[in-house]
């Protein structure tokens, strides 16, 4: 389907291209920055430090420690792990997706987090930002898998179509299923980044024509962690990577395989608008008095009460916003089947389809109608009884 279009990106993105080739430690980091700035100037590019300053590095690690719920005393350990010369190899596979997860990681207003991740890992294969293309790209994937077999971290972005032998998504003539089946079992751990890779996402919405599935349904025997969200928060991804580097294992997860430090609590239970909910102040519609005053968005369909995520705490894009903070209800993007079960987005509950009638209505109006029919039935039943007893007597 749309995967074909992404192949074009393999030519490399001029801005982030050098990121992949960068292999400097933090000691010669200053020299590297100057060299890169010169390189970028020569190329007539925007003047952006493509590496992280020491301050930014510490900030990012502290942020990740906070997201992980680790104490201050653990920050030096995180730093040590992040600075280690043995950077873990990461192979990043794109399947049926929109690249939004990568975009959200790399295009933050202050791109420190994305760059921090690129600094602490050795990203051997990432179709969006890598320099090689065509056969060279395939070779780098193959070489890296061979060289680091059993040791690399695999990041999967996007769902895997399984219908029609997986023919809906092909990369270099091979289906996504094939590639995952080859690369997946050789990884030390798998990070399914985004709701598509975790649960199938929008591609898996009914009637799911491509048979899209999440990684955990197709891969077994390898530890898998789901960083769901559309897009997921880069801080959560960074936290998971740093956790792996520091403790040599994936973080503790909930029953859906999502790390508890980020998905251990419902949005509603730590939402900044919660007081308005408890005290009965609601926006009835967008733009009304309640909405303008920042009241609770429950009545305009916010799915915070049924969605697990750290959005209210971690927030997005380093400018401290998330959907509810800017006046739009949560749409529940971190949950499985969110496209099917969280819609209509501006109603509390899904609608009921009455089989055989084509009628789709909300549960309460269906309930009231059935109750009305029952009341009418009871009235007719009672009337029939009265008529029967009268005619008998007569």
């Amino acid at each position, binding site marked *: 389907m749309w995967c074909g279009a992404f192949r074009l990106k393999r030519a490399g993105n001029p801005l982030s291209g050098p990121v992949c080739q960068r292999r400097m430690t933090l000691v010669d980091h200053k020299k590297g920055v100057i060299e890169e700035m010169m390189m970028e100037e020569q190329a007539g590019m925007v003047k952006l430090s493509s590496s992280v300053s020491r301050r930014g590095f510490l900030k990012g690690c502290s942020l990740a420690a906070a997201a992980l719920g680790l104490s201050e005393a653990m920050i030096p350990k995180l730093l040590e792990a992040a600075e280690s010369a043995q950077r873990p190899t990461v192979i990043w596979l794109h399947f049926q997706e929109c690249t939004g997860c990568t975009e959200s990681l790399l295009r933050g207003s202050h791109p420190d987090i994305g760059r921090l991740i690129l600094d602490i890992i050795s990203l051997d294969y990432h179709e969006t930002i890598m320099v090689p293309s065509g056969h060279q790209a395939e070779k780098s994937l193959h070489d890296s898998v061979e060289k680091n077999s059993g040791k690399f971290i695999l990041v999967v972005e996007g769902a895997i179509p399984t219908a029609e032998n997986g023919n809906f998504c092909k990369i270099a003539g091979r289906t996504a299923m094939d590639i995952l089946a080859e690369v997946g079992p050789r990884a030390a751990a798998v990070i399914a980044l985004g709701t598509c890779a975790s649960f199938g996402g929008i591609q898996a919405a009914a009637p799911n024509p491509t048979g899209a599935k999440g990684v955990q349904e197709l891969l077994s025997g390898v530890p898998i962690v789901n960083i769901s969200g559309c897009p997921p928060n880069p801080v959560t991804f960074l936290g998971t990577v740093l956790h792996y580097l520091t403790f040599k294992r994936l973080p503790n997860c909930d029953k859906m395989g999502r790390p508890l430090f980020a998905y251990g609590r419902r949005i509603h239970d730590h939402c900044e608008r919660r007081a308005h909910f*408890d005290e009965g102040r609601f926006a009835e519609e967008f733009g009304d008095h309640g909405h303008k005053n920042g009241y609770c968005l429950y009545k305009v369909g916010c799915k915070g009460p049924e969605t697990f995520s750290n959005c209210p705490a971690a927030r997005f894009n380093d400018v401290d916003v998330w959907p509810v903070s800017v006046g739009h209800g949560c749409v529940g993007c971190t949950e499985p*089947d969110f496209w099917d079960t969280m819609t209509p987005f501006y109603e*509390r509950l899904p609608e*009921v389809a009455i089989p055989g009638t084509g009628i789709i209505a909300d*549960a309460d109006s269906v309930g009231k109608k059935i109750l009305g029919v*029952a009341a009418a039935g009871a009235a007719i039943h009672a009337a029939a*009884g009265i008529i029967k007893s009268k005619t008998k007597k007569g």
Partner: protein
Amino acid sequence: MTYEIKNVWSILLRLFHWSLVLSIIALVVTGLYVNTPWTNTTLEGSVSFPMATMRYIHFVAGYLFAAAIAVRLFLYIFGNRQERIWDILPITPRNIRSFVTTLGYYSYISDRHDPRLGHNVLAGSTYIVTIVAAIFQLISGFYLLFPEAGFWQGLGNGIFGSQQQGRFVHHLLMWYFILFAFVHVYMVVWNDVKSPEGLVSSMINGKKFKHKNA
């Protein structure tokens, strides 16, 4: 005509019944409020706390409902003859006969009436379905109340898939209980009119009146 007074319902069963009545009324009213809060205010501060209060009543009533269901399950096995599940499970020939007879009786097809002391099997089967619905209502309720607890998360995700689906099932089952309560009250009153045996008061004093030579 002489009557004989029979003890039918134990005190525990009557307690179960009225706890269920009370909790269902409280749960439906507060549940509808929690889903569609019909009040709205611009008052700020602690003078206004309607949602938290409604939720509190809902949870307390939920525990009462859970206790009532637990009592009924206990009585299905350890209750008196009328209360035990074998008296109403439509699997024995006697019970299947009662089921069919009652269907005919309720729809005015025949005047034959199953004279048993406890529930007729049509009513009893409906109650079993209702208890099963109540168990699912309780699982979905506790799944929503304790979303972080491993036990409820595992059970709820297994049955409903996600919190939102659990909430949806919880809401639909509420409509089942509303319908059940309506039909139940109508049929009880109808029975009490059609064949007087003190059916309504039996749930208060536990006794039914039976014809001596019926």
